[in-house]
């Protein structure tokens, strides 16, 4: 029994189910929370690949910042507009069955997911991203060095992009005040 494979499949199922619930939840808060579950699952996959740094950054940025911001946006929205509780109280299994059978909740997301998975598999089989072995020791140092040397331009472009977004948000907020 390969434990790594088992944990991978478990994590994969969790991620897939959570991702499915993200797009199908009627309550937007639930969608945000399922998103957090999916992102933590992805962090788990990173951990399995011994990319601890990436896993922690994933949790820090996505769960700690992005999901929190989403949640904050939800909380600041008028309650009546977003709170549409699913009133379907009939059995979970049949509800699930009907959901899977419907185009909106079943076919469309599954088809989209399959398409994406096939595309990724195809790209991967074409050796689009060659995988090397994990360098031993600290990962932060080479990462930081390459960000400041090889990938300096993309890094700076991304920073400027974020800065622009921030300035834009401030401008919008100030305009809203007046």
């Amino acid at each position, binding site marked *: 029994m390969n434990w790594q494979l088992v944990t991978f499949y478990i994590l994969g199922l969790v991620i897939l189910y959570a991702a499915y619930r993200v797009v199908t939840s009627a*309550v937007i*808060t*639930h969608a945000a*929370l399922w998103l*957090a579950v999916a992102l933590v699952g992805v962090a788990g996959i990173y951990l399995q690949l011994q990319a*601890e*740094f990436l896993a*922690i*950054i994933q*949790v*820090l940025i996505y*769960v*700690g*910042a992005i*999901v*929190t*911001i989403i*949640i*904050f946006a939800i*909380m*600041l929205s008028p309650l009546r507009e977003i709170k549409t*509780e699913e009133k379907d109280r009939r059995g979970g299994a049949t509800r699930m069955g009907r959901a899977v059978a419907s185009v909106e909740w079943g076919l469309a997301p599954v088809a989209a997911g399959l398409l994406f998975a096939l595309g990724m598999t195809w790209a991967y089989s074409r050796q689009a991203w060659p995988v090397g072995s994990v360098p031993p020791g*600290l*990962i*932060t140092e080479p990462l930081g060095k390459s960000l400041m040397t090889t990938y300096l331009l993309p890094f700076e472009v991304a920073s400027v992009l974020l800065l622009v977004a921030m300035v834009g948000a401030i401008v919008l907020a100030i305009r809203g005040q007046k």
Partner: protein
Amino acid sequence: MFGIPEPWWSVIRAVVWALFIIIFLAVNAIVAVWLERKVSGRIQRRIGPQRVGRPIGWAQTIADVFKLLVKEDVRAEATDKWVFLLAPAIPFAAITLMFLVVPWGKNLIPLNLNIGLLFVVAVTSFEVLGLFMAGWGSNNKWALLGAMRTAAAMISYELPMVLAILAVGMTAGSLNMNDVVNAQSRVPFILIQPVAFLIYYIASLAEANRTPFDFTEAESELVAGANIEYSGLRWAFFFLAEYGSLVGTSAIAATLFLGGWRGPILPGPVWFLIKTYLLVYVAMWIRWTLPRVRIDQLLDFGWKFLLPLALADIAVTGIVLALL
């Protein structure tokens, strides 16, 4: 070791550490609540609890724990069932994870992660998720307001906190908790990075929802904040997490700035506990001195003062390190 094959040995090690951390947090809540009552009493020239467990009232919080254990677990009909039920576990889990990388002594660390500092920051961000789930799931306006304020405070104070931790990482030249402690073998970082310590400590007060930043349960305005609808054991978990995060942030501060387990004569864990609870005491002392600030003051202070200060601190640290 002891004739046990290696994979099983690490499993046993993990289980023992996990149990130790959970038991430590439970005992900590009992001790810290007792300490809080005593400290608040002394500050107000009272004596605090003294009847249950005479003469110092040591059994008062234990009695409270038993009271909580036998209380009914109430869930209102209008709550969001699973969100409501799962919420108390998350802050507690986050605190437990935080202790995973805290060194208790030489080679006494549950998980020697290379990026322990980042790990601490990452897991603390779960806490806000749990409080939000509690606030949202309760379907109660006070709870939601409390959760919203907490989320705002935590977002604002996580940034200066991370930057302060980063300054320590830069000074130590590593993000590994053991390396940080070893780098303080001669001088604790509070002397090298006093500004970072202040920023971290203020931010950690906000992160642990302590007065003057206790917006999660601003009793006088929000009744009790995010955990208002909870009772019994579920409420106890919030309480555990609250005091856990107080002792957790204090433990991190002790490790990063006060030299962790390092100290003369006494063994490492003792020094670690002394330093941690010294900072816990300071937090209590601050709590019973200062009133709660307004939420807009809190955000102003975080974004307009602490964040620039932390950035300046990082810049100065970088320049000094480059020159040395």
